[in-house]
């Protein structure tokens, strides 16, 4: 039981980038653009955050937070390529996303070589400091779990889930965004500028994925390397599908996947899991997503027009 309690904070650390990146994917797909470049954007965000943090660390204690901002900005700029290719040039969105994933790998390590003369950034000392909320952290059981030594991205993830839910389901922007993803011709006939909305969706996904990558590197590592993100962007895609393109679903799925990853570390301490090879735990999120895909396949749960090239002339 106590093992479970120690696992929870670790699970939160793993889950946060997954949830945040998945929310990014949600905004993009809801607007009608498939974005499988979440992985690449996370890499770019992670690199930017690590680089900025390591440079600013000697100068200010807020270096980590400025690094996060850098990650968000880098993610947004990188995602503009995908937006331009998909919306203006009507390129195949999956090919564009794949190209961006390859580009991210090359570009980030290249810049590491240029700035740090090695294939990784220089190691930063602290990254993001764990937070404790005074008072609340003294509540028995819940206190130590949720309010003591918590990794800040976790709070950010919860906040963003609620914010995303509000924006997507309660605001006019959200209604119009969803219309663009379900039936762009209908949206256009009501005077909505579909191209603009889709740009917004992709850039938001760039910001969130960049944030996720930044958070990941600053809380799970001491530097950025090519292997820093190791497929989390794709797990985020799975989390999005498993969570049925709904912010709270994403939260649940993300926590679940975070636990699966945390289990791999603690498996040796949990009796009935000891015999299971580590790799099974690593595989778990992917297998679950595959199953979810099959289960949901007939029910077309995702935005109806996502991935289709929007033909402005079709009436």
């Amino acid at each position, binding site marked *: 039981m106590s093992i479970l309690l120690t696992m929870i904070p670790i699970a939160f650390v793993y889950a946060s980038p997954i949830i945040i990146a998945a929310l990014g994917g949600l905004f993009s797909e809801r607007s009608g653009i498939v974005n*499988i470049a979440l992985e690449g954007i996370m890499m770019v965000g992670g690199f930017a955050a690590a680089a900025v943090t390591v440079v600013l660390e000697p100068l200010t204690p807020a270096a980590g937070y400025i690094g996060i901002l850098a990650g968000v900005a880098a993610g947004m700029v990188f995602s503009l*390529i995908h937006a331009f*290719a998909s919306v203006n*040039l*009507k*390129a*195949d969105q*999956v*090919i*564009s996303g*794949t*190209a*961006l*994933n*390859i*580009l991210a*790998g*090359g*570009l980030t*390590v*290249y*810049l590491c*070589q*240029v700035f740090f003369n090695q294939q990784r950034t220089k190691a930063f000392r602290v990254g993001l400091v764990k937070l404790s909320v005074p008072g609340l952290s003294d509540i028995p059981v819940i206190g130590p779990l949720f309010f003591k030594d918590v990794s800040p991205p976790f709070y950010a993830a919860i906040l963003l889930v609620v914010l995303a839910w509000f924006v997507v389901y309660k605001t006019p922007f959200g209604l119009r965004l969803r219309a663009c993803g379900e039936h762009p011709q209908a949206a256009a006939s009501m005077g909505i500028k579909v191209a603009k909305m889709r740009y917004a969706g992709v850039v938001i996904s760039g910001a969130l994925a960049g944030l996720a990558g930044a958070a990941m590197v600053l809380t799970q590592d001491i530097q950025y390397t*090519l*292997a820093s993100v*190791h*497929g989390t962007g*794709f797990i985020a*895609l*799975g989390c999005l*599908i498993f969570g049925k393109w709904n912010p709270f679903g994403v939260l649940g799925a993300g926590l679940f996947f975070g636990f699966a990853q945390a289990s791999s570390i603690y498996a040796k301490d949990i009796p009935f899991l000891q015999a299971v*090879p580590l*790799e*099974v735990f*690593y*595989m778990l999120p*992917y*297998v679950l*997503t*595959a199953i979810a*895909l*099959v289960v949901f*396949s*007939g029910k077309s749960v995702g935005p109806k027009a996502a991935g289709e*090239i929007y*033909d402005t*002339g*079709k009436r």
Partner: protein
Amino acid sequence: MAKKGSALVIPLVSITLGFALGAVVLLATGRNPAAMFLALFQGFSGVNVSAGSFNPRYIGEFIIQSMPIILTGLSVGFAFRVGLFNIGAEGQFLAGSMGAIAAALWVKAPPGIHVVLVLLAAMAAGGLWGAIPGYLKARFNVHEVVMTIMMNYVALNLNNLLIVDVFGSADRIKTAMFPASALLRDPALSALTNGSRLNWGFVPVLLAVVAFWFVIDKTAFGYSLRAVGFNKDAAEYAGMKVNRNIVLSMIIAGAFAGLAGAVLTVGTFNYGRALPAMEGYGMDGIAVALVGGNAAIGIFLSGLLFGMLKAAQPLMQSQGIPKDIASIIQASIVLFVAMKHGIDFLIRKIGARKRAEEVSEALI
């Protein structure tokens, strides 16, 4: 004839733009593009222009870098012809590698036969890994993109699991060495190229290229695959079995990628390896297929192009050019191809729709 010429334009323009972009990036970060081009030249020809020397080892390495990606390119390209995006080539590659390791370590057979069995086992394993998403697509319309990405990661972890727990590994990184009868290696070829890792793998590669061309262009089956890829409605209407074609072509695509895994594992290497991350042969295959126009000869040539980029990386690094410029160039080329296809698609659709509008309004 005009049509054939115009089909070359997109890849050639994209390649040029990709290299141009790479040169710009180098200049912007204070590196010399000329050094990169010299390294590329040396990478495939063995000729060191500045030193005036020649070393055939580079040619051998260039060939072995090209081989697996030509095969994964065939895999992706074959699936594209039926209208499917096979991002799963990476996982099918790993599956093939696992099949090859199993056949290399567990099957006893005389030399000559053994290596053929290894290749066949790899193709079967890759084919199986491709059959799963193919069946799910045909039967349940599960989108192959995310499904195959998931299967890639499952394959990676399965590979590591097998290496450590099933095939046996002393250091959790490598298996035991394979018996020589299972290998594509040949000391003669190595000697010919001054100690490179050149091996007989180029034979199955060439056979695969020919097989791709033959099946797609020359068989009734290939005809129906192409019909389904171009116009599913008309194909269905003419009585073709669309679902069966989808599954079969994913099996074949998986077999090509599986063969690539074998060529790497028993050709370039001679033991199985646990991998910390995917090595990207599948992604390379996507680039190769797209730039090669999904045609046999195009894939062969673009596989050589990207192989040249990969082979030149150590040379570049030693000249102070970060080797990752190769990935940047590769990604840019793919992006430009996708953009140009997008533009062409737009032009064609607008043209066709305008004509259709005119026609329907012209009803008297």
